[in-house]
């Protein structure tokens, strides 16, 4: 590995971009153009760095790579970066979605463009920081810092109830995070290190693990979001601008899942095992209840937001089944959902830009007037439903394999969620795309522009890639997931005793 601090560059580049965008002089129009182009160039450069990271990554080891350490903030914490396969994949997801967000806001955001682009670049810095941090408090700093730009994005550029939504988003997630902070302070006071790898190897007393796990759970469950603390999500999604929704669904929700897999699971195996009924219970409720809620929504964004909650329940169920298929399936689900829900929000954004309403009943019969749009929307709908050859299928299938090994009932309930998911997504598609267009203004909408088609095409590529050749994405995950499994083995619940085809249920790896 060369001495280039590539992760620092990855994290700090958008920050410099944001400063440049904010302080560049010129006319209002010139500043806006400067902001758009700077943001696009910076995010594309980030994508290039991300790809370079992926190409240079050694998938055979669970160790952290590209490690950098500087004692800038002694005695409390240090600038300590490093990524393993799980972090790498989430970084790739983030840097992939950011240029799409910038392009999606190219014309739809007209007020305060420099501030908007700066907020997004800042967001990128903080998200990448979360995934690349190898120091506990550095992680917390990035994790919590993300609240500020997102608060501003929802509050300034959001819809009618933006202020209510921004408060709810901020205070909800802050309350979760501060409890986690206390747990972190306790951990450091006991283990005398802030290094995440060292803390993962440290054995906390099982009775303490209960409390630590609950504190981390409070933070990640809100971020995830899990039922019943999901209520901030539909509000935030509905009021956020399109690109804000994409980032929220695509990356911010993944912070919770990443937290579970990085902290809650390997650091507190006994604590995790103790709360399995809670996790599974909440996941099942979320899958079935929020799917039913999604069915009755009349607002497109709200429907997709509730479907996000249901899909995230797959992630939590998968991560906590204590076997390889479940954990890898959960992580794949995060990646897949990140792209698919991001793309679905982009699809909503396309028609919202034209008609300025998200009411499903205001659309209909778009297949006649917007055939290209109908095609892309169908691809992402099918991927969300989990059709084979799409990323949704691979991840849902892995999670189901994982859950069946631990409990048949859990697996069965999760399958119910897939059926309901197909129900609300297909019904949404039917109401928006098919039928006869009764609204003249909806029928008069022009089809996708070249820019919009390009964005959606770019989003469709990973959906099929993950669906047809998931090995590219699974390979980097094998080693770190193996390390987690080795760590949590001692607390693993006994696998379910299946009587008939026993040979087939044995895990292959």
């Amino acid at each position, binding site marked *: 590995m060369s001495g280039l601090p590539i992760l620092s560059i990855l994290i700090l580049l958008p920050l410099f971009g944001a400063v440049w965008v904010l302080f560049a002089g010129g006319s209002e129009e010139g500043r806006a153009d400067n902001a758009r182009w700077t943001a696009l160039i910076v995010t594309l450069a980030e994508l290039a760095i991300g790809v370079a990271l992926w190409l240079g990554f050694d998938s055979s080891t669970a160790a952290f790579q590209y490690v950098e350490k500087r004692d800038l903030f002694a005695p*409390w914490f240090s600038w300590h970066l490093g990524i393993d396969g799980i972090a790498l994949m989430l970084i790739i997801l983030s840097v992939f979605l950011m240029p799409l967000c910038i392009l999606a806001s190219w014309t739809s955001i007209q007020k305060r463009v420099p501030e908007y682009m700066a907020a997004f670049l800042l967001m990128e810095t903080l998200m990448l920081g979360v995934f690349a941090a190898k120091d506990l408090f550095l992680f917390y700093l990035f994790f*919590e810092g993300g609240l500020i730009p997102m*608060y501003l994005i929802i509050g300034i550029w959001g819809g009618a109830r933006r202020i209510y939504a921004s408060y709810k988003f901020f205070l909800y997630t802050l309350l979760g995070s*501060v409890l986690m902070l206390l747990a972190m*302070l306790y951990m450091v006071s006991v283990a005398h290190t802030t290094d995440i790898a060292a803390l993962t190897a440290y054995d906390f007393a099982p009775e303490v693990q209960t409390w630590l796990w609950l504190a981390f759970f409070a933070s990640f469950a809100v971020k995830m979001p899990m039922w019943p603390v999901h209520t901030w999500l539909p509000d935030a999604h509905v009021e956020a601008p399109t690109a804000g929704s994409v980032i929220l669904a695509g990356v911010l929700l993944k912070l919770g899942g990443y937290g579970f897999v990085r902290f809650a699971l390997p650091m507190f195996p006994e604590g995790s095992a103790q709360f399995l009924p809670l996790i599974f219970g909440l996941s099942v409720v979320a899958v079935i209840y929020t799917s039913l809620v999604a069915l009755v929504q009349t607002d497109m964004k709200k429907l997709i937001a509730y479907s996000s909650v249901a899909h995230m329940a797959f992630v939590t169920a998968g991560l906590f089944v204590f076997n390889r298929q479940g954990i890898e399936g959960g992580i794949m689900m995060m990646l897949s959902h990140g792209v698919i829900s991001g793309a679905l929000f982009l699809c909503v954004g396309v028609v919202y830009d034209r008609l300025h309403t998200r009411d499903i009943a205001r659309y209909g019969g778009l297949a006649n007037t917007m055939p290209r749009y109908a095609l892309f929307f169908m691809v992402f709908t099918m991927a969300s439903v989990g059709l084979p050859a799409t990323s949704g299928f691979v991840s849902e299938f892995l999670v189901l394999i994982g859950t069946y090994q631990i409990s048949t009932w859990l697996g069965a309930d999760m399958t119910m969620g897939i059926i309901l998911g197909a129900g609300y997504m297909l019904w949404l598609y039917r109401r928006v795309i098919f039928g006869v267009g009764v609204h003249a203004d909806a029928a008069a909408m022009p089809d996708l522009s070249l820019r919009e088609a390009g964005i959606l095409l770019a989003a469709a590529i990973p959906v099929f890639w993950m669906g047809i050749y998931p090995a590219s994405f699974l390979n980097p995950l094998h080693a770190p997931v193996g390390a987690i499994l080795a760590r949590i083995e001692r607390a693993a619940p006994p696998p379910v005793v299946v009587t008939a085809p026993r040979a087939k249920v044995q895990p292959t790896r």
Partner: protein
Amino acid sequence: MNPTFASIQTAAPELALTVGALLTLMIGVFRGDRSLVPLTWVCVLILGIAGVAAVTGAPGEAFGGLYVADAYSAYFKVLIFGGAAVSALLALPYLAKTETGRFEYPVLLLLSALGMGMMVSAHDLLSLYVGLELQSLAAYVLASFNRNEARSSEAGLKYFILGALASGILLYGISLVYGFAGSTSFVALGSSLHGATGHEIGVLVGLVFILAGLMFKVSAVPFHMWTPDVYEGAPTPVTAFFASAPKAAAMGLLVRVCVEAFGGLTFDWRQIVSVVAIASMLLGAAGAIGQTNIKRLLAYSSINNVGFALIGLAAATPDGVAGVLFYMAVYLVMTLGSFLCVLQMRDAEGRPVETLASLNGLSRSRKGLAAALAAFMFSLAGIPPLLGFWPKFAVFTAAMEERLYLLAVVGVVASVIGAYYYLRVVKSLYFDEPAPAFAASNSRVNAALIGVAALFCSPLGMLAITPMVAAARAAAAALF
């Protein structure tokens, strides 16, 4: 060397301030109010000299153990003199605009700074009282400096009456402690109370009275009632001063009294400090929610912040005290920065406005000012990566290490409640439709001060963590 001469040398910072105050007073008397601007700069210079003297001076006791110079007092003196100097500078545009530009302002600041220097260097309950009173008397006058305005006079009167009551309680406590413990010297008290079993109930009662008097000065609940009224009524630059240097000095005094003089009774005062901390954090957070006046809001914010700082004192460890010290340093900058922004709030005719609603949409008309104020608010709310998060981090760490879980849990819950009203200010700045624009500011000094403070609170300020924590730890080590 002659002991008197040696004592004077040890107390060089206070000496510089005394001479400076008398000198500026003389000049002012002869030259009149038109000398306000040069006198302010002279005052800043004198405070700078005193600060340098405090840092470079040799540690030691003076005046027969009444006064002590150590790393702890030096740390606080830098904060206090710095805060006082900024308070002198930020007042200039205000004094020029509101026809209250009398030369006494910098002189009173110097006298107050002298009292504060004595407070953090006090090594005896009596020198403590003298320093406290000197500081307070100057502050009472400053509060009613805008004497043509009823609100300002009311603030001064209220502050004076309640402050006198608090001083009386404090003195009564001192007399009780002297009666039952037999000394007023911190050193003697520290050794006689150390390891004593079955404490005299009289000493405990005296301790409670002393703490009540000191809690009044740091405006901790339940001795906080004066704070919102005085903050609102006093002229804004004076409020900025009250919220910064005297608060740091009183906190420094409180910590020294608790740790040095009553270190043997840690178990007893920890209960008091814990209850006061919890009450301050919660009431400070909840009380601010309904406020519509930005100065009252900042008053509750200061009550809230004092509660957080007291967590570090409740821990009663070197790390906890270092946390308090670090807290006060960062808080000083954040609060001075916030008040500097408040000072910029003037309507088209140049009259000061103080309502939250007048901040609406400031991000359209004054981008830089809005961004700076937003940074202070997020920083006061303790959201990382802004610097304001780290003092809270420091005191919470100390509390966790001492297993004071209740304090830590209440603390984080209060910080979430408190986040709401800081967010409300940011909402006004960024989300709302613009209110009438403020008059343009022409003070470069104030603009520069705001810029420096905002940079310090920004994530860039985290680079200052290492040196500041090292200094705070060295200062705290002087007490143990």
